[in-house]
């Protein structure tokens, strides 16, 4: 393999691993799993570099590999191995939790979603991707993206009733 291209890949890792790690951390919710996920996705990308002629496609490939890895790894595991079941913070006394409290509630609720639900929300609300792009990344239809986003938001409200009091999206 061309040593210049090898050097470029290393450079890509040096420059972009921090951003990749941040996304992986949102997907996994814990540092060690996030590191594993990034490394795994990079390894897969490296193995497929020959097919990636467009340089700009490399980061997209790594990110798709991360999402697939995360969703499929969890799919292979038994459902008994659900993620964290941290206790939700107590509700605000007056029933009108302020934003700081609500974020803590949201964090705990996110930890109780399935990896796929979490992935859909990270793609939609962190990476800000349109539905058509999310469908491509996850390899599902646009209709499925919509229904899974809806179900994921409903699940958040179910595990964290405090979120039900929020305004509906405009």
């Amino acid at each position, binding site marked *: 393999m061309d040593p210049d291209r090898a050097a470029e*890949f290393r*450079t890509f890792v040096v420059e972009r691993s921090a951003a990749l790690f941040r996304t992986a951390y949102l997907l996994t919710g814990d540092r060690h799993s996030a590191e594993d996920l990034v490394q795994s996705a990079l390894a897969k990308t490296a193995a497929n570099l020959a097919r990636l002629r467009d*340089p700009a496609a*490399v980061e997209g490939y790594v990110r798709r590999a991360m999402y697939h890895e995360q969703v499929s790894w969890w799919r292979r595991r038994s459902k008994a191995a659900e993620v964290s079941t941290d206790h939700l913070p107590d509700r605000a006394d007056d029933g009108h939790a302020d*934003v700081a409290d*609500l974020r803590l509630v949201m964090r705990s609720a996110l930890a109780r979603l399935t990896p796929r639900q979490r992935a859909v929300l990270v793609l939609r609300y962190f990476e800000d991707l349109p539905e058509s792009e999310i469908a491509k990344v996850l390899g599902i239809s646009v209709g499925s993206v919509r229904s899974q986003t809806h179900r994921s*938001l409903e699940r958040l409200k179910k595990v964290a009733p405090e979120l039900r009091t929020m*305004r509906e999206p405009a």
Partner: protein
Amino acid sequence: MNIEDLLRETLADMSREEEPPPPGRFLPGQPARRRVWRPVLVAAGVAVLIAATTVVIQRTAPEKKDGPVAADTSRPVPVSKLWPRATHVLPQKLPNGLAYRPEAFLDERTLLARTGKGDTVWWSYDVRSGTVKRLVAFVPPPRTDYTSSVVVGSGRLVWYTVSWGTVKGLLDIWTAPVTGGTARKVTSIRQTMKYGDIDLMTVVGDKVVWSRGIEGGLYRAPLSGGDPARIPGTKRYHLLQWPWAGISGARPDELPDSRFTFQRLVNVLTGERRDARTGTASCSLTWCVNHQAQALRRDGSGRRTLPANPLPPGPPALDRFIVLRQSSSRADNRLYLYDLKTHRTGDLGIRFEIKVNDRTASDYMQAVTIDHTTRYVLTYDLGDKRVVIDLPAIPG
């Protein structure tokens, strides 16, 4: 706020709470962590070692539709020769023996230097005579986790402190006279970000103005003290440089990890819009830099190929400056400060090799990474010296 906004804020908040590991963690030769994909790594790890690709930042031939593209082939000149009045090579300790961090130049010879962790002291450091004078001694409130850098304006220093980890995180904005004196609280904000939910703060006349990092929105408070108020009509705006703000929102030509690119700008005083016609690129008020190592004006004109690859492209600092990395091989990497306005390339004198288990490369690149939030100095250590470049003093 609706549940979608809360989700955006929470995810953005979480994404910043864990410091990413050094890139060397992901380079071949690192011990693999546990977990199921180990068999993949055994095969693909070898591939990482020998395989490769060109990447996002690779310079590519310009597309034909863009017409001719000027190439910038000027030779880099050492910064101390190119910009002698702006480049200061200083000791790594103040004359009083304290370790310091350069914050800004107050005039062409007076550096505002900061010392201390927790309790913070700002000094004026006359870099010609080597004398230091204590300006402000600041004791942050109890449980402060972070004290920001300062911004300078209207004869004041302004900064903020963040207490995090408590259920109700607090951010306090402070001010003191630039000539020295006692720190006074300007206002307080409820928020949960570890390093403060402010993406840019500035002084405008007798007010401090800032935008919130996650959800955007421009806010102001009187420097004399008082409650913060959102500037009407600025929801989801992020400050670039007063009075210009970027409008957030999903857009296909923005970057894949939600870094903000300031493609869509609005003047919050006049309502004037300046949207970029550049494709995917990070923009300041005048200039944009794309992944093909090209710089061009916001309106798409003046496209030229840069003399080297931009270090992760972000909005240029002071609407002029970016840092470039020239790499002829893994062993030979050089960092340059490039002026988009004059097309001059200043060689920072930094040389490094990208190696496994060596943070030198990422430490250097981190130290010199600049963007629109960099308004005063570019600083890094070289040998036993500290180089401090007074960016606003670079002649245009």
